[in-house]
């Protein structure tokens, strides 16, 4: 079951490569939140109940509901156009993300020793690199945040693979989630929308020598 969920997660990354509209990105993020809820439920069922409830609450409430709704609100409020405006054609994006997944497949086969769980490592690595790829190839500031959220989902999966013995790591990952999201989303996107007309990366090149 975990494997099926993780494979779905990897497929959602490919879908992110061809998605055109910002709302599709948001839906994919919500879907990933549900997948993470499932994975953490199956994996962490033995740990301390209170901690489990906390983690499950974070995935279902924070990742699946709060952040997507908030992103939607930001997009409406700043009247951001609904296209993602990638620098690359969709076809190439898909090819690159597939290559990333293939590369993480090979890499996780190489490094998987006795202790690493291959499937988790694969999904996490693919998510981290796809997130970085989305950050560099999309024009809008809001897609930067989405790429960052994909990276965080990847890190969350990686921390789940070590969670049976060290649940504290998952909690640390959640603090990362919450701190950064609150700051980045809450404060800056509102401000950036007010200061710069077009919320595009092209506004962010005034600081130079």
């Amino acid at each position, binding site marked *: 079951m975990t494997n099926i969920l993780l494979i779905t997660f990897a497929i959602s990354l490919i879908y992110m490569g061809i998605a055109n509209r910002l709302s599709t990105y948001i839906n994919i993020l919500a879907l990933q939140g549900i997948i993470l809820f499932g994975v953490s439920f199956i994996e962490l069922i033995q740990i301390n109940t209170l901690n489990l409830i906390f983690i499950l609450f974070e995935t279902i409430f924070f990742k699946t509901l709060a952040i997507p709704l908030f992103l939607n609100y930001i997009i409406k409020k700043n009247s951001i156009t609904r296209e993602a405006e990638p620098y690359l054609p969709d076809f190439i994006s898909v090819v690159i993300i597939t290559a990333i997944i293939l590369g993480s497949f090979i890499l996780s086969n190489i*490094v998987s*020793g*006795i*202790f*690493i769980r291959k499937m988790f490592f694969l999904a996490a690595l693919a998510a*981290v690199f796809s997130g970085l790829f989305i950050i560099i190839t999309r024009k809008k*500031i809001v897609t*930067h945040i989405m790429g*960052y959220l994909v*990276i*965080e989902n990847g*890190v969350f999966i*990686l*921390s789940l*693979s*070590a969670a049976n*013995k*060290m649940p*504290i*790591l998952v909690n*640390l*990952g959640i*603090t*990362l989630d919450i*701190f*950064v999201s609150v*700051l*980045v989303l809450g404060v*800056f996107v509102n*401000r*950036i929308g007010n*200061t*710069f007309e077009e919320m595009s990366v092209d*506004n*962010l090149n*005034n*600081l130079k*020598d």
Partner: protein
Amino acid sequence: MFIYYLIISLLIGAATMLNRNRVVRIVLLILFLVVQTTMTIYAYYHLNEENSGYFKFDALGVIFLCVLTILSYTTIYHSYVYLKHRKDSIRSQSIYFAALIILIVVMTCAYLAAHLGVLWVFIELTTLSVAVLIYHERTPLSLEATWKYVFICSIGITITFIGIILLSIAIQETNIANFSFKAIPAQLINVNTSWLKMIFLLMIVGFCTKMGLFPMQTAAIDAHTVAPPPISAFISTTLMNVGFVSIFRTYTMFSHTPILKWMNIILMLSGIISIIVSAAYLLKVNHLKRMSAYSSIEHMGLAAIGIASGGIGYFAAIFHMILHSFVKASVFYQIDQFHRNFKTYMISETGNYFNRNKAGAMVFLIILIAITAMPPSGLFITEFWIFKALFTSSHMFIFIAALFFLTVCIYSLTKNFLFILFNQTKDLLPAEEKPNSTETYTQYFLLAIVVYLGINPPEFMINLLNDAVSILPK
């Protein structure tokens, strides 16, 4: 004890945030400084004791805590001067000071953390609290810099977190994984070396965002450009020390494994490339604060080289960081006064500072000597030790390259500082207000410390430094 410190200072921070009265604010700030000083003294007299579970007063942490406490006095004073001249609203002043107090507390925790996870959390918190301060001027430019700083630091800290998770996976073979710095080295004995290399690399990349070393130096540079000068002084000294402490602790953690040589190569490369990058940018830089920021990058590169070459280099690197903190802080305090005099940071639009503000110009002149490591400055002796360590560890190529690019840096810094001080070819508008020489006393004080520590380092400091490097392989 430490937990009480945390609670009291966070309460003071909250009170500063809510308070709108000028006199009460000053009282709160003085109260905070008293608490901070008490904590520092307590930590010094309880060396190597664990406290409140996740914190430990070890030598490395206490050294940098002392530096932080000294600099928090001067930074709070200069912040006060800075805000008085800007005529900001009372509300934004309250936010400024509250964020400053939180930043100091968080950095104290990061220095003293004895647990990898705790260190990581507090490094993340430094990013958040300093972001508020960088954004203080509320201009589009400061928004851009804050955005870049927060984003790059968040990605860096995420990469570090991946390293920490991989470390936990790697040491899970031993039954109970314990993440305190004391317990990790014993658990690393059976771990595969290629894993260790990967973990070290990931962790270092993340910490480099804080220290301003090569792969991630850009965030700090942009933040310097727009941050209020007293905050720039913090970003480039105590915050970089946070990065240094975390890199040093990571290095210590792995130093008894077979990857020691490989780690040295990585740090050496990172250091020398930082020096090359800063030398290249210093040649064409025209913004006074960016110039100082690049000079910080250069010194961080030297410290990294010091660690990488081993032997006396460890000792020299820590000493270098201490002295660099005092010099660089005084640079930024003086830049604040300089900016009020000229209303610009652009070097080419200024000049003849000697006639406009004698006391401030003397500070710049002494800083020039101190920062280029000319003999009365303490940095001379630490750079000498770093190069000695490079020489004895037979890194001849790095030795020559570092000397060459350091010469380029010295040339650019001297050229720009002398232009500011003595160039009389421009017709400049007279300054609106008469410069106040009492504002320069702190800088003379800090620079005097630099000279004094170089000539006659006190016994207790040498002991602390020796204690800090004692666990490392000779």
